[in-house]
């Protein structure tokens, strides 16, 4: 991972963890600092996500929230400036404009409105520039429509900036002319800010005018007119602020206008005035720009003053200070001077072929270009090309003459390639050296050497390409096929090094497929495969990637390599690549097919097995999750479907297990690596799933490859996020699963002892910090979920055993601690055990009730420990404990107690939607448990507040109203809204069924309305699952009303009729 990737990853991780930090943040969130940090590093997407998150955060002040739209706009503008993809750039500007307009519309009087207007002007300016670029993109004829659009945007931007200038002028005029900076420092500072913004506004307005000229035809009168207007605007600025930097900048702008108008003498006069200014650092940068512009003027075809340009340019370049060497302005000047020197040499050559200055000029040009080519930047490529054009003859008079035959060209190419490789080797060495050197002077020396080595390597690579291409020109029938293949191979290597993958592929495949017996064939085939993989990676990095072309060719060449050179290193590498790509594309059958193509004795087979096995295991987990989610949705899969899918999944698990076990067996004697440790952990997890906890523990505890051992030893191969936690969880699950299998009491005690030690080890791993403790609770809760899942999936006979083993384990743990977090975990575990033995519908089973009772006791213990002054747990966690306790009581059939608890919570925090939902469910289940049910509590809520007379518990009707409004701004409420609407209709329907006559009909009609009106707030019915539930309930209601039970169809027909009528 590169340094920048590392920083980016760290920032992203920090951002992802932000909700966790929320709990510990004290004082105000440093929004601006964080935003500046993100934007400063170019992480605009993260900045935007952050802004989206804080919008709904209650901890952020209203003052900060007011500026969110402004910040979004400003972030998008900054992002658009770095965006190369024009379509994305345009979309970013659209969004920026929208946000800024929103900000101005909602906060017209906000102090930042001026800045927002300026940013709006910037949007228009960027859009104008974008359209101008697009218009001129096709070099032949600029797109007139785009030019017009660009001009319109420039005009609009001018209007924005002029308005801003007028406003600032107005504010300045209202201010006192004389302000004492000591007595009225704030007012004084404000005036200075306004003045600076005013001058800046004038300058931007003039620059926009200048840029507008480019939207007209080059020699048109309109263009000339606009350039003159811009020149006048600059002139006026220069006159006013002659002694300030703004005045000099205006002078430069004026010079540019004259230059574009072809009035080069006037332009030169303006630039010369800048060169006369004092030599302050900020002015030197402008002077450098001016000198480059002067060179352009002198070398213009109408002037042809190369000697003047060379003399003046060279003198200024000689004056460069050490800190200016790498400055982009200086680089640009050097490159311009290099071109001028070449043009000067050509001019001298035309006049006098033997002029000694010709060579001197060319050498000087080379020196300047070489300096530019040394450092990364947008000019580097141009400088390198210039060096290639100059050739090396000028620099090295002893260089050999150009090759004249295939053999000579081939030798020259091979030599160049060798020299390139030597330079690359040196490059690597210097890179290492650079990391070790701390002295700045020495560092700078090494950097220069490194830049030289890189340049030499690039130059020699270019030479090698030139020579090998020449060799192909000379190649005839006499040339040996092997030699010719080698040339093609070298060319493929060169193109690959330059990132020209298509070219690399053409050469490489020619050798690999035409001459598979040649010595170059196998390495060439590798280059072809690697090129397609690089193309595949670059395509996949884009949005809406279509990588069909790349993956098809990867398969094609990969299979060719595997079949042609079976058993070789190249074939194995190709198969590994094919497996990786297949896994990435979720083509697991293909991955298994490629695995079978390995020789049994192949050194890479183990690695392939580990990757494939892990991929199959991940697929199993994903598919299992999807299946269980689908089982809870309507329509649920039929029994046959479920069985078939379960059978397929079981087979998948068996295959994953076998492949992983084979791979681990093969790899365990070799070197430890991350793939192997991950694979062992995956196999241990599979073994838990297949009821083999003892074997699972053996793998986890293995002396050499066991993940548990490696984690406890803090081994480098397990240093990756989440691995240790996952290992501890798996090991604990293993021990829990082993408890019921223990042959004797002493065995059980031994297992418990191990589990206890493991938990100690886990606790010391996470540390005794608040963060560590939170992590620990997270691990325990997640473990509870895993065990719950395991119990749910276990066969009936194992289910009881597992549950009781787990209970023994939990009881043992509970006896050893008074720590609130651990007790909470134990309570959660009991709650999970109750859940896993509970269908959730109707009365809970005796087994479920037993575990709910244990959970209830545990929750009570926690609450007892945290009353009044002895409250040590986080208040949020305590609320959660009370909520869980209420839910537990509900499932035990203690409805009144449950409602009492919910009421108590809601009296403190009435707007906790999840608690309101649980309370409504409790009323609903309470009604359902009665022979003569009354659903009104579930519908309209209950427990009115004596003061406000409003119900503390809302019930489904109020819940649907609140969430219906909330979901328009926050989609997270969407599901709760549909849950409330559905249950509202269900309760009314069930209530109606126990009524007679008009009462019954009224409730049924209202139930029907609850469903049909849902579409007003939610046209998609909350997705297919909710829609199906609404549909089937509506059919029942329609049936009870004596209507045709067509469900939502009736509504559609009505809409059609109404549309036809209209």
């Amino acid at each position: 991972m590169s340094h920048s990737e590392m920083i980016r990853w760290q920032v992203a991780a920090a951002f992802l963890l932000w909700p966790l930090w929320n709990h510990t943040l004290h004082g105000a969130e440093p929004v601006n600092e964080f935003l500046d940090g993100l934007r400063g590093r170019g992480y605009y997407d993260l900045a935007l996500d952050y802004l989206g998150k804080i919008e709904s955060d209650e901890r952020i002040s209203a003052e900060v929230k007011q500026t969110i739209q402004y910040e979004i706009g400003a972030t998008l503008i900054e992002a658009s400036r770095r965006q190369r993809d024009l379509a994305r750039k345009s979309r970013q500007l659209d969004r920026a404009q929208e946000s800024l307009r929103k900000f101005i519309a909602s906060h017209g009087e906000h102090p930042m409105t001026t800045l927002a207007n300026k940013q709006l002007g910037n949007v228009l300016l960027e859009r104008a520039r974008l359209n101008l670029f697009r218009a001129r993109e096709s070099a032949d004829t600029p797109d007139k429509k785009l030019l017009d659009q660009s001009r319109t945007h420039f005009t609009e931007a001018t209007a924005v900036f002029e308005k801003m200038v007028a406003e600032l002028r107005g504010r300045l005029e209202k201010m006192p002319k004389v302000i004492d900076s000591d007595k009225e420092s704030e007012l004084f500072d404000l005036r200075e800010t306004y003045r600076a913004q005013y001058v800046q506004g004038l300058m931007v307005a003039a620059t926009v005018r200048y840029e507008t000229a480019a939207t007209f035809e080059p020699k048109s009168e309109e263009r000339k007119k606009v350039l003159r207007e811009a020149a006048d605007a600059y002139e006026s600025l220069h006159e006013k602020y002659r002694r300030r930097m703004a005045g000099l900048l205006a002078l430069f702008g004026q010079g540019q206008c004259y230059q574009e108008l072809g009035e080069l003498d006037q332009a030169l006069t303006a630039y010369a005035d800048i060169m006369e200014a004092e030599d302050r650092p900020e002015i030197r940068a402008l002077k450098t720009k001016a000198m480059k512009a002067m060179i352009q003027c002198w070398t213009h075809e109408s002037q042809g003053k190369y000697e003047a340009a060379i003399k003046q340019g060279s003198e200024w370049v000689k004056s460069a200070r050490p800190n200016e060497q790498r400055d982009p302005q200086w680089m640009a000047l050097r490159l311009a001077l290099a071109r001028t020197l070449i043009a000067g040499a050509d001019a001298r050559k035309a006049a006098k072929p033997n002029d000694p200055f010709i060579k001197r000029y060319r050498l000087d040009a080379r020196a300047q270009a070489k300096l530019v080519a040394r450092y990364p930047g947008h000019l580097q490529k141009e400088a390198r090309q210039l060096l290639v054009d100059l050739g090396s003859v000028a620099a090295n008079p002893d260089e050999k003459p150009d090759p004249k035959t295939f053999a000579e060209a081939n030798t020259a190419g091979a030599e160049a390639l060798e020299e390139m490789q030597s330079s690359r080797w040196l490059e690597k060495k210097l890179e290492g050296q650079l990391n070790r050197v701390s002295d700045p002077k020495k560092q700078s020396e090494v950097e220069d050497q490194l830049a030289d080595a890189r340049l030499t390597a690039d130059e020699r690579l270019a030479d090698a390409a030139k020579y090998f291409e020449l060799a192909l020109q000379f190649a005839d029938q006499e040339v040996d096929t092997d030699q010719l293949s080698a040339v093609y191979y070298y060319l493929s290597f060169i193109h690959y090094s330059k990132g020209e993958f298509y070219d690399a592929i053409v050469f490489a495949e020619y050798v690999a497929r035409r001459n598979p017996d040649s010595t170059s064939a196998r390495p060439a085939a590798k280059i072809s495969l690697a090129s397609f993989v690089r193309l595949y990676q670059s395509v996949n990095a884009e949005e809406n990637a279509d990588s069909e072309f790349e993956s098809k060719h990867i398969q094609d060449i990969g299979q060719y390599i595997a079949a042609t050179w079976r058993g070789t290193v190249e074939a194995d590498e190709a198969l590994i690549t094919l497996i990786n790509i297949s896994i990435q594309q979720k083509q697991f059958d293909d991955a298994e097919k490629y695995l079978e193509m390995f020789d049994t004795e192949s050194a890479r087979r183990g690695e392939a097995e580990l990757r494939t096995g892990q991929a199959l295991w991940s697929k199993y987990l994903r598919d299992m999750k999807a299946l269980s989610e689908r089982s809870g949705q309507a329509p649920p899969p039929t029994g046959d479907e479920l069985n078939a899918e379960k059978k397929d999944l079981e087979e998948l698990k068996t295959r994953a297990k076998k492949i992983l076990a084979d791979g681990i067996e093969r790899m365990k004697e070799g070197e430890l690596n991350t793939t192997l440790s991950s694979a062992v952990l995956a196999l241990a997890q599979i073994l838990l799933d297949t009821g083999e906890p003892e074997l699972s523990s053996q793998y986890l505890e293995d002396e050499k490859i066991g993940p548990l051992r490696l984690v406890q030893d803090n081994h480098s191969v397990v240093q990756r996020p989440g691995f240790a936690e996952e290992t501890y969880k798996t090991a604990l699950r293993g021990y829990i699963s082993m408890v019921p299998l223990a042959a004797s009491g002493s065995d059980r005690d031994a297992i418990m002892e191990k589990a206890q030690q493991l938990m100690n080890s886990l606790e010391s791993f996470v540390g005794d910090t608040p963060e560590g403790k939170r992590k620990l609770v997270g691990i325990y809760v997640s473990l509870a979920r895993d065990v719950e899942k395991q119990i749910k999936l276990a066969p009936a006979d194992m289910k009881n055993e597992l549950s009781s083993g787990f209970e023994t384990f939990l009881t043992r743990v509970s006896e050893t601690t008074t720590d609130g977090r651990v007790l909470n975990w134990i309570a959660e575990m009991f709650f999970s055990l109750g859940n896993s033995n509970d269908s959730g519908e109707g009365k809970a089973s005796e087994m479920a009730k037993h575990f709910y009772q244990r959970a209830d006791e545990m929750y009570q213990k926690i609450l007892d420990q945290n009353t009044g002054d002895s409250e040590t747990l986080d208040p949020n966690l305590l609320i959660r404990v009370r909520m869980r306790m209420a839910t537990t009581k509900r499932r035990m059939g203690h409805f009144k107690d449950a409602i009492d608890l919910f009421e108590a919570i809601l009296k403190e925090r009435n707007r906790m939607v999840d608690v309101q939902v649980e309370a409504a469910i409790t009323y609903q289940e309470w009604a359902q448990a009665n022979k003569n049910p009354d659903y009104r509590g579930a519908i309209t809520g209950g427990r009115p507040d004596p003061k406000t007379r409003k119900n503390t518990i809302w019930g489904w009707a109020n819940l649907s109203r609140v969430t219906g409004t909330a979901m328009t701004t926050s989609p997270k409420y969407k599901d709760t809204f549909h849950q409330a609407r559905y249950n509202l209709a269900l309760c009314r329907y069930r209530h109606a069924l126990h009524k007679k006559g008009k009462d019954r009909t009224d409730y049924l009609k209202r139930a029907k309305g609850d469903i049909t009106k849902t579409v007003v707030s939610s046209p998609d019915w909350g997705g297919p699952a909710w829609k199906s539930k609404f549909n089937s309930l509506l059919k029942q209601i329609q049936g009870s009303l004596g209507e045709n039970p067509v469900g939502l169809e009736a509504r559609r027909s009505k809409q059609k009729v109404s549309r036809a009528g209209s």
Partner: protein
Amino acid sequence: MTTKLQTKLTTCWLTVVALSIITQGLARNAAGQGFDVVQTTKPPSLRGEITKTSPTELTISVSGLERTIPVNTIVNVTYMDAPSELTGARRDMDSGNVEAALKKLKRIKTETLERNVVKQEFEFLHAMATARLALSGSGDKAVAVRDMRNFQKDHENSFRYYEVVQVLGDLAVALSKYDRAIEFYRELEQSPWKDYQLNAIILEANALTMQKKYSKALTKYVAASQENIPGLAADRLKVLAKIGQATCLAETGKPDEGIQITDEVLDKLDRDDFELHAKAYNAQGACFRNSNKIKDALLAYLHTDLLYFRQSDAHAEALFYLSALWEQDAKRERAVKSRKLLQSRYAGSHWAQQL
């Protein structure tokens, strides 16, 4: 559109080069021993003195006995009194080094050429080299037409007659005078030999393709590819017809059928037949281009650009399409590079003029 007539009408490229090397060796012997040598598709070669030529036959007196050889069977002719530059120029022409051939021809003092057949050969090679340069886009087409026409007029009985007719057709195509080209190709079709006739049909279809009359061209290509004419030369012509067929399918909404054809052709092609490879990859490029498979098209045309760049006409075509495809693939720099190469190397070509 230009093709090496000699190659088409005799045998594949490799065979020609191999035979021509042998022939050159024989010629040196012949010159020493005072023989003209005629190499034919059916060995052995005939040694003697060429006494008469016509557009369809060449007569050689072998040990006093007149032997008549049909022109379509001639592989190579060497003359007992030809200067070494003439033989060298012939060799350069065969290996595609036209400029070197012209240099050698310029060194020959024409007044030293005594026999009419040798003078004819000199004039033919000169006109042919000029035409080749013009057809590759780097020579003057009008001059080439003038020289060819002069040769045709001055040597009505030359055994090179049909070669000249074909080149005149090719030059007419290069000048976008397609109707005139078709007249020449129809004249070629009047020759007495089946393989010459087949070649003429394909050339006419090529001219129609250049006019974008794809349906008409397709009919001719299909007919040509189904001709039942035996022999290596005819087989090669039929492959050419198939390649043309693929291009037309690409342009008439059936690129997938075209891809199938080019895949089959490329699979079976003689590895050293660069000309057919270049044409087949270009046809494949056209098919992918018309299926909107930009990356596949790039890869196809790049084969011609990087591996078969000596096939000037096909190379110019590939560069033309590559410049557009690189643009589509957002690689502007590569597009400019392809365009510049097309403009600099094949400035006068049909493809450069399409930019």
